[in-house]
């Protein structure tokens, strides 16, 4: 009876210990090449990476300012490079398991392009006129 109670207490403590480490473990998963990824999970992470890169580039391009259509091409190249580098070199996932390079690279692409353009246009218009 005492042994089963102490076993239960240990299990409870272990569960609490795990719960406390849920957030750091989720963060660690983002950089863990051994972590297993669901298609939806990886797609979501790549989507948000694109959005953050789009927002930062838009704010930066608009502040400097960088002018010309060539900077849109450059943004697309940088953004795609970062996404590719993340899933191929940091996570080291097999892209065939997730629909190939095209499927992974197009996650959040259009939304990030429009977000980038919006940020770029707004900062440029407001800061330089």
């Amino acid at each position, binding site marked *: 009876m005492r042994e089963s109670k102490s076993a239960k207490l240990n299990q409870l403590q272990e569960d609490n210990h795990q719960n406390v480490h849920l957030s750091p473990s989720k963060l660690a998963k983002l950089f863990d090449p051994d972590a297993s990824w669901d*298609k*939806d999970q990886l*797609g*979501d992470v790549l*989507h*948000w990476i694109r*959005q953050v890169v789009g927002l930062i580039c838009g704010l930066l*391009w*608009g502040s400097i*300012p*960088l*002018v*010309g*259509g060539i*900077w*849109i091409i450059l943004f697309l190249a940088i953004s795609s490079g970062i996404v590719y580098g993340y899933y191929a070199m940091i996570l080291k996932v097999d892209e065939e*398991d997730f629909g190939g390079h095209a*499927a992974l690279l*197009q*996650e*959040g*692409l*259009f*939304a990030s392009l*429009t*977000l980038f*353009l*919006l940020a*770029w*246009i*707004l900062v*440029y*218009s*407001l800061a*330089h*006129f």
Partner: protein
Amino acid sequence: MATAIPLFASFKYADSLTVVGISFCTALVCEAISWILIYRTSSYKSLKSSIDKASKKLETMKTDNPSSKLAIKKSKTKKIDRVESSLKESSRDLSLFKFKSGAVVALVLFVVFGLLNSLFEGKVVAKLPFHPITIVRKMSHRGLKGDDSTDCSMAFLYLLCSISIRTNLQKFLGFSPPRGAAGAGGLFPMPDPKTN
């Protein structure tokens, strides 16, 4: 608040902030309406769940039986076909379900666009840091006088706001269509048209 108005008035293109603000509020209202009419209903939840299950099952079956293998059992192929047709049917039902409820959201968007058009017709609301290509210029220079292609009209800015804000808002709130559904994702994933 009183100090904010003169601050914004000093910007030549302060109207752009108005367009973005109205766009953001419209996106919130549209998602709220969509949640009331679509996302909280049991029909939507069960359709979404069946699409998720079917697409995951299909993935597993295709991974276990890659097309490169020549000797695929007929029964396995039939099973895959059955799951695929079930997935297509569920996707179609989902689209139809959303379409019926999307009319209200479409009306809201129509009214907001009309309002913005009446407020900003003929006005340059922003300056483009690039010269747009001809197809884009038709939208970006819509209703504006002069030849300066870097002048930006309300319509183009509203389009950018709509796509970026609503797509990300849907994603953030978890209202994006399931990846397994037909027409979801692709190279140009637009905000879910049936709810917008």
